[in-house]
């Protein structure tokens, strides 16, 4: 198969081709495997009017919102866990309604659509399964269904009471980072799985970013480990350390120092914009970012030792 036929692409080409102005974009990964590399490329390419969906917007959406790519945020927990807030987003949510179009030098106001964690994963699950809704036992008394009319009551058809429903979430494009995939995009992950499988199956387009490109025999040796089949993948981008300052189980640790140091930056709009210039706009890609971080910083993030899974035997059956 000629190289041009494969899905393997640079981050620049993948974002150019598969992320479009106005899209609903889900860069998922719960703490683990967040594709900062893709987020930065979206910023660099100047996408606009995106609806950004993520359970936990984390630093990456703080950066993307501050860079002006987003019109709306769909989420379930907004913060820098264990550290503080996300000022780039908060200032745009707390902004006066009159700032809706960012006129008069005011920060543009961000539209929000809010769920709980279970609501968000149930939304992706409904989207992936092509269902009109998912039922869940939540929201019975809280104020969220009043704040978000997309959360609705539904009666059990068995006469045993009501539960709540959330609607499907079907991103135009879902971007996930993973330990490895083959050239067709058959993708394997270990450690926290988050909602990446569901977010990928729910999406119209899927970009997989991996630490390592492997032969399909590696994937086929352990088919239970595959979370996304190449069938639904449009592009495979090889970007080692592409999840920094998030982490990749077994490859590198979360850069907690980065998360701690984000707090004073995000509290100050000027500092945040300066950070974006220095670390995103003035760099031409992930390689430059990693070079700027420096090899010592990256090396220090390696796990303190190995923790091998052990192998199991599927057996040959001829």
């Amino acid at each position, binding site marked *: 198969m000629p190289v041009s036929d494969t899905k393997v692409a640079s981050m620049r080409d993948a974002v150019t081709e598969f992320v479009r102005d106005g899209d609903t974009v889900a860069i998922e990964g719960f703490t683990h495997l967040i594709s900062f590399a893709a987020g930065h490329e979206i910023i660099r390419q100047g996408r606009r009017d995106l609806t950004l969906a993520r359970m936990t917007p984390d630093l990456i959406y703080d950066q993307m919102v501050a860079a002006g790519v987003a019109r709306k945020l769909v989420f379930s927990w907004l913060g820098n866990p264990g550290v503080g807030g996300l000022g780039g987003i908060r200032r745009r949510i707390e902004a006066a309604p009159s700032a809706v179009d960012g006129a008069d030098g005011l920060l543009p106001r961000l539209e929000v659509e809010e769920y709980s964690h*279970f609501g968000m994963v*149930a939304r992706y699950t409904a989207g992936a399964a092509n269902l009109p809704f998912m039922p869940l036992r939540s929201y019975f008394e809280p*104020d969220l269904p009043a704040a978000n009319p997309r959360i609705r009551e539904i009666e059990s058809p068995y006469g045993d*009471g009501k539960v709540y429903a959330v609607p499907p979430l079907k991103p135009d494009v879902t971007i996930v980072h993973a330990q490895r995939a083959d050239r067709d995009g058959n993708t394997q992950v270990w*450690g926290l799985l988050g909602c990446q*499988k569901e977010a990928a199956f729910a999406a119209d387009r899927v970009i997989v970013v991996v630490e390592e490109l492997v032969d399909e025999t590696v994937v086929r040796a352990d088919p239970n480990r595959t979370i996304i089949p190449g069938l639904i993948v449009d592009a495979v981008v090889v970007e080692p350390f592409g999840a920094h300052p998030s982490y990749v189980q077994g490859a590198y640790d979360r850069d907690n120092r980065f998360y701690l140091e984000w707090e004073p930056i995000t509290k100050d709009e000027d500092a945040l914009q300066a950070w974006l210039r220095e670390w995103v706009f003035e760099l031409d890609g992930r390689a430059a970012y990693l070079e700027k971080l420096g090899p010592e910083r990256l090396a220090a993030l390696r796990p303190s030792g190995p923790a091998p899974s052990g192998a199991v035997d599927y057996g040959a059956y001829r």
Partner: protein
Amino acid sequence: MTDAAFSRNEMMIVAAARELAGQRVCFVGVGLPNIAVNLAKRTIAPDMELVYEAGVFGARPARLPLSIGDPTIVTGATSVVSMYELFSLYLQGGLIDVGFLGAAQIDRFGNINTTVIGDYGAPAPRLPGSGGACEIAITARQVFVIMRQSKRSFVERIDFRTSPGNLGGAEQAERIRREGGWLGRGPSVVVTDLGIWHFDETGEMRLDSLHPGATLGDVRASGGWEPKVAPEIGTTAAPTDLELRLIREELDPGGAYTR
């Protein structure tokens, strides 16, 4: 041991950890619950199973995770599953004994706000939101809360009900839980930097123990309602050397939770 030997935050974390004695399965919330539960696992509840909403059952963190999605909660765990499975099978499925939450605002009936201060449409400030807290409040058998107490956090009326507690009181809460098929029986403990509260038969929180050095005057000055106080109020036992050493050397050497 003198009051000077430990901080109020350290006392709060130690008291919260001790409340977990005898519990089997604990769902660990982000922030202060994380350090309290990990202290309990190292002291009073070594066999307690830790569940993290990130998808982990039976975590054995080798260090205190800064976030609740840290790689140290994965390596050596019993089971790691998708978040949809974690929420539907473990939480909604009724396997959680204690859900341990933090709070920005709480009212006397244990209703919790972590969403907004002020109006939802124009918040000041905007807080993180539910995460899994609203589901934990509804389905964990019991809910424990750990939070610092102040006029801003212990309020007559919370601005947004993120996670339901005893609603308007025990009678109403019990009816609504029964009708809605909730698995949880609601909040049972609130541990603050001043003392330990449990919920009485009316569903209202009652101060049962004051931490060393804290007074009823401090408590009254740090809340938006006249608090119920147990007839014979106790004094929380001060942190032991072991508890303090674990916090300072193993769990929070950088002082992120205790400073």
